[in-house]
């Protein structure tokens, strides 16, 4: 018993020594923190990039967008990451000029569990808002059945499930609802945690998906990647141009392509409900937050090199992990932005 403990302590000590040694030999360590949504892709990027430039090591903590904004504002990390763009007040609070670099896009899908109804239920955006407001209460409501001729919708109450934890997914979804429904905007508003008028709260994507799966006649919302991986049925939503769009990597990228005309130079734009025939309506950028004036020239140079790589080679790794890559025209814009980092 005691010898086992002693042995494990020794192993631990050895491990600690080895890690310390390897850290000492790495030339540059770049620290980042923030959004958890893009974390799987970022860690893939960092490990791939380590093969190209072994002299730089990235350390990313997925503590959430709010945490990322706090850390980069306090200057405790070299870059931040967020699913929401900073407000003017937040930008002012930072000690230097912060640049938003969009990396990829994510989408949120509406998932449901109606016995006998597979994927592809068609929903108008205002109907989604009214379901989550508790105004449409039954699945066979005329407003839903009119868009779905031939689908047997039950005369049962709709059970609404939402995220209970503060999350970027909720922020994008409530941004969309505020955009398509004045009543939602007025009564509830948008945010990572809001006061939901109806429904149950599930923790995380898995909480919402599990609840929807277990509850007949339930409706909820999850990240696109999560819905794909778990083969959840999802609704086709009507976009601004009037067509019902299936959520996919392509229709997500199309939303940014549609927004490129109105794209501000700091990329602080919400991508929900964008024009374009193929644009899926619940889409958002995720950004890296980087100071324009880098304190450490070596680190700054390495960071810019990485951003250039991520913008071209890195984008190709996005789709297999179910993130939507930036459309070509946005890539060109971002390229120019990166060159301003000193």
């Amino acid at each position, binding site marked *: 018993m005691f010898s086992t403990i002693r042995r494990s302590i020794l192993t631990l000590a050895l491990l600690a020594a080895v890690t310390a040694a390897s850290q000492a030999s790495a030339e540059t360590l770049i620290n980042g923190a923030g959004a958890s949504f893009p974390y799987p892709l970022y860690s893939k990027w960092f490990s791939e990039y380590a093969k190209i430039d072994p002299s730089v090591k990235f350390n990313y903590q997925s503590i959430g967008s709010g945490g990322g904004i706090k850390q980069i504002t306090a200057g405790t990390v070299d870059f931040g990451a967020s699913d929401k763009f900073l407000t003017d007040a937040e930008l002012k609070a930072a000690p230097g000029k912060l640049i938003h670099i969009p990396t990829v896009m994510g989408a949120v899908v509406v998932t449901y569990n109606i016995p006998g109804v597979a994927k592809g239920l068609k929903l108008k955006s205002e109907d989604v808002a009214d379901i989550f407001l508790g105004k449409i209460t039954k699945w066979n409501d005329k407003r839903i059945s009119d868009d779905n001729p031939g689908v047997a919708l039950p005369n049962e109450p709709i059970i609404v499930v939402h995220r209970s934890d*503060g999350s970027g997914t909720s922020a994008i979804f409530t941004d969309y609802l505020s955009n398509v429904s004045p009543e939602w905007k007025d009564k509830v508003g948008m945010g990572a945690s809001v006061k939901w008028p109806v429904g149950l709260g599930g923790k995380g994507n898995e909480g919402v998906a599990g609840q929807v799966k277990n509850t007949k006649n339930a409706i909820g919302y999850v990240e696109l990647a999560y819905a794909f991986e778990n083969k959840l049925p999802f609704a086709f939503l009507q976009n601004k141009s009037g067509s019902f769009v299936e959520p996919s990597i392509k229709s997500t990228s199309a939303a940014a392509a549609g927004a490129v005309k109105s794209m501000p130079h700091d990329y602080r734009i919400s991508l929900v409900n964008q024009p374009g025939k193929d644009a899926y309506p619940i889409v958002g950028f995720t950004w890296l937050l980087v100071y324009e004036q880098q304190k450490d020239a070596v680190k700054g140079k390495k960071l810019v090199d990485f951003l250039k790589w991520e913008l071209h080679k890195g984008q190709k790794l996005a789709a297999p992990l179910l993130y939507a890559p930036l459309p070509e025209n946005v890539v060109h814009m971002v390229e120019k932005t990166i060159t301003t980092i000193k």
Partner: protein
Amino acid sequence: MEERLDTYAKKGNGDAIFRVITLLFAFSIIVILLIMTGEMVIESLPALRKFGWGFITGSDWDAVQGNFAALPYLYGSVVSSILAILLATPLSVGTALFITELAPHKVGTVTASLVELLAAIPSVIYGLWGILVMTPWLQSTVEPFLIKRFGFLPFFRGAPYGVSMLAAVFILMIMIIPIITSIAKEVLLAVPQSQKEAAVALGATRWEMIRIAVLPYGRSGILGAVILGLGRAIGETMAVTMVIGNTPQISLSLLSPAYTMPSVIANEFAETAGKLHASALMEIGLILLFVTLVINFLARLLLWSVTRRWKGGVA
């Protein structure tokens, strides 16, 4: 004897040093508690100033509008923990009695180690099991039954969602049973054999022996075990968050979803909508600390009165 103690004392000031060191250790715990409390009070000042007593009497929690009131969370925490304790205590004490007094030695040992194994399972595993196995079962079997048979009571009204106050109570009960059982077992093992033999010699049956000789002796220890269980129940976060439905409302029905204080902190702290939101969550933490202290204090009071009453009697 006294002479020998004196010679020890004269040998050097080892004892004094030892005393100072242990005093420092004990003191550091108090200091940490004070620093923590102080920090929480400072952080929650904006919410304290803005909402005052309304924070614990109101029930509007809206991060977008900046209105915060915590009564539903307080209610959810207190009710779920107390119900869990009420269910877990008889089960645990019964198990402990079985292990120590009734089971053949081997069976008892196996049961005891199985119960202790339960205590080692991380709470997120309980949560996952709760959401994947227990809540579907509650939803399809238990809750419809309760609604059908006991629906006339206000406690079993509403639709069967699965995730509910009931689910939280069950998961908490399962999580605190090992704690109460293993402590109660140790307490019961400490009952002097002579006392039990005396009861049996007077013609007591096994049940009577347990009732008059074992339980009274272990009463204060068992109460201590229950307090520890309650402490765990009220602070438990992850497993409860996963099964309680996270809806801030006050409902008599055990079938409706609810919300607890640790859950809302875990859910919302990472992505707060601003200083006031963070401050309101901090204040909930402060209330949680306060509730825990009050419960501990009341339990100690109970313990004290019980032990005093029984002092002359049996032990």
